[in-house]
């Protein structure tokens, strides 16, 4: 899916991101917005969906509490590329973040532990296994498009879902009438 260049949205994001002092990812995001077709970081988007990262971190990566405990925000994370790759492959011991490398904690040591040593801290197995290339791709996707981004917006949402779903309408409404859409007012129709 191509990201249409939306200068207004992009620059707004840049301002908010710089304000949060995440200048590197902001540059990456802006770059992605300008050269969508050639951007190799888009390849990991499919992995992000296929491996059900969206199940806890949501499409926008913000994660958050709720019934599923507390998935960390990939937008606010400070993990490096190497740490990302390790976390996706090995999961996070003691949390619900699954491992996605076939044989992790068995043939492949993780955090210097095997399954036995991990014991009760053993993370769950992902719903699908990812090859190293896929793990790098999803990492590069998250770093380029999610890490360091501010609040999710319409352009970003449409890039993820396309226009077939109404999943992004709420962001459009917020951008048009921000004062009315801050919170669910629960008003009757």
């Amino acid at each position, binding site marked *: 899916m191509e990201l249409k260049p939306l200068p207004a949205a992009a620059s707004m994001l840049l301002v908010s991101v710089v304000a949060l002092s995440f200048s590197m990812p902001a540059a990456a995001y802006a770059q992605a917005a300008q050269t969508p077709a050639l951007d190799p970081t888009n390849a990991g988007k499919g992995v992000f969906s296929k491996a059900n990262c969206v199940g806890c971190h949501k499409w926008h990566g913000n994660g*958050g509490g709720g019934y599923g405990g507390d998935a960390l925000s990939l937008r606010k994370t400070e993990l490096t590329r190497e740490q990302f790759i390790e976390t996706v492959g090995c999961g996070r011991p003691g949390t619900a973040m699954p491992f996605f490398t076939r044989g992790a904690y068995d043939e492949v040591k993780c955090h210097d532990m095997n399954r036995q040593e991990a014991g009760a801290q053993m993370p769950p197995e992902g719903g699908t296994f990812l090859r190293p290339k896929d793990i790098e791709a999803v990492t590069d996707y998250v770093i380029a498009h999610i890490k360091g981004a501010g609040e999710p917006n319409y352009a970003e949402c449409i890039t993820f879902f396309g226009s077939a779903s*109404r999943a992004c309408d709420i962001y459009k409404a917020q951008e048009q009438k921000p004062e009315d859409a801050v*919170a*669910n*007012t629960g008003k009757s129709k």
Partner: protein
Amino acid sequence: MERFSGHLRIGARARLLAVTVAAGGMMAALPASAADGVNQERLLNVDKEPGNWLHHHQNYAAHRFSTLKQITRDNVKNLKVAWTMHLGGVEGGGIWSHGGLEGTPIAENGFLYVTDGWGSVYKIDAHGGRGVLVWKMDPKTDHDWAGAVACCGVDNRGVALWGDLVISHTLDGRLIATNKETGQVKWQRTVADPDKGEVITGAPLIVKNMAITGVAGAEYGIRGWLAATDLTTEKEVWRTHTIPGKGEPGSETWKDNNNAAAAGGGSTWVTGSYDPAIDTIFWGTGNPGPDWDNAYRPGDNLYTDSSLALDANTGKIKWHYQHTPNDPYDYDSVAERVLVDVPGPSGPLKLALEADRNGFAYAIDRTTGKFVWGLPFVKKVTWTKGLDAETGKPIEYDPNKAVQTYVTSVTPSRTNMETDICPGNMGGKNWPPTAYNPDLKLWYIPVIESCNRIKVEVATPDKLKPREFWTGGGPSQPFKITGSVTAIDVTTGKIAGKLETPFPNLGGILATSDLVFTGQPSGEVMALDAKSLQKLWEFNTGGGVNAPPMTFTVDGKQYVAILVGLGGAWDKWFIDSTPELKKIQPGSMLYVFAL
């Protein structure tokens, strides 16, 4: 062949009905084709057609009791699969990796009407000892839009029939009327709005040409409601919010400065019941939001966690009874109200029964809304020492306190940020329906024998965002969870029996004269003796039972049907408490059994 004979018979019946209707001069406003369909008279008198299953909960009183007597305690051991049918709707969307089946089939004149999680409706011809798909209506539900704000799965609990229409809901907020013969959508209407975090999972309740719709979304900051749609004009007749507006009675029970009431929850996602004698609809309401930070919303938070009695014509609340004021546990009182009449000291008692997520079974006088009796139906309750014998409120409840703490050491709060509660937040009983045997006066509850751990996150107004969780914390599952079928003698308000099961009961119950049917998420469908709860028959479906059984006849022969396909909240949020269930695969299948 069988289909033709079925249609011929319906044709004859239709002519007969048409004559009757013309003679009575009734229903003149309805189209002629409605005459052979379901009308209020038939919905009121389902006991006259025991081979059909016309209501979601079997009758208006939500008994889920069948008088069919071919399958008995003596021959149930011979029950076998008659036929099966694979359905669709397993695909994921939003935060869900797959859908599941929670529906109750509707049966009329040898045809079944079932739904999958995404709201596709299947009409199945069950004549001749096998199932043939007549049509499938796919509402093309917006998976990502709805699935992102469905707290607890890709679920649809079934349809209702009215005139020549099949009435159904979709997760993305629509009420749909489909032509019963052709499967073509006749009309549809948007009732709920996923942009506000609202979705629909329950089956509609049909009362006097109106479809009553409940809403889900108390984990997403909705303000709950019930809505009635006129099935002729397709217009809304009434909409009653379960959280009072500013200045309305009950608004004084929201004492915060955050406008918490506007996102206060009080969802209505389980189909209610109806008492025609007093023209009153009974419906339960869900938890207040944010779920676990009750200091954000001081006050009792009416009408969350309540039993509501509503005037069927206007939707006006006649009375309310709140079960867990200022709830800090996520203990919805959303379960079906089972309407029963039992002898009392001074004349018959007209009761509304409810098995609450808080672990207590309640009998409320359905005329006055007064508490009659209550008792724990789960093995372990830690959040309260019990109910006040007079009022039925938890004994620690203090009406002068803005923020309730109940058993303080157990209760999640801003000073008790991580704590274990029993029952767990999924409750002692969730949506899976109870059943009531009016001959034995026994009420059967599908129980989740549970505890879990709650971590509180302090809620602040800036954290309230459209389409994002609004829970003030979250649960985790460090404890093994099991289940039971628990029977309560309604004449005494005491437990009459408990059959413990290795897994929680996530499907619900069917009662017949001498049997109880139920299932397990590990795959078993089983029949129990109605009095002793002794297991008499079992069949492993190879999937996860997450839906209630029902029974019907075709060509004079009795069948038991159940949808099988584990989905819903359990296998995403609570699976760590039942690790063995991780091996249960997603599925979507209808099983039909016969002798």
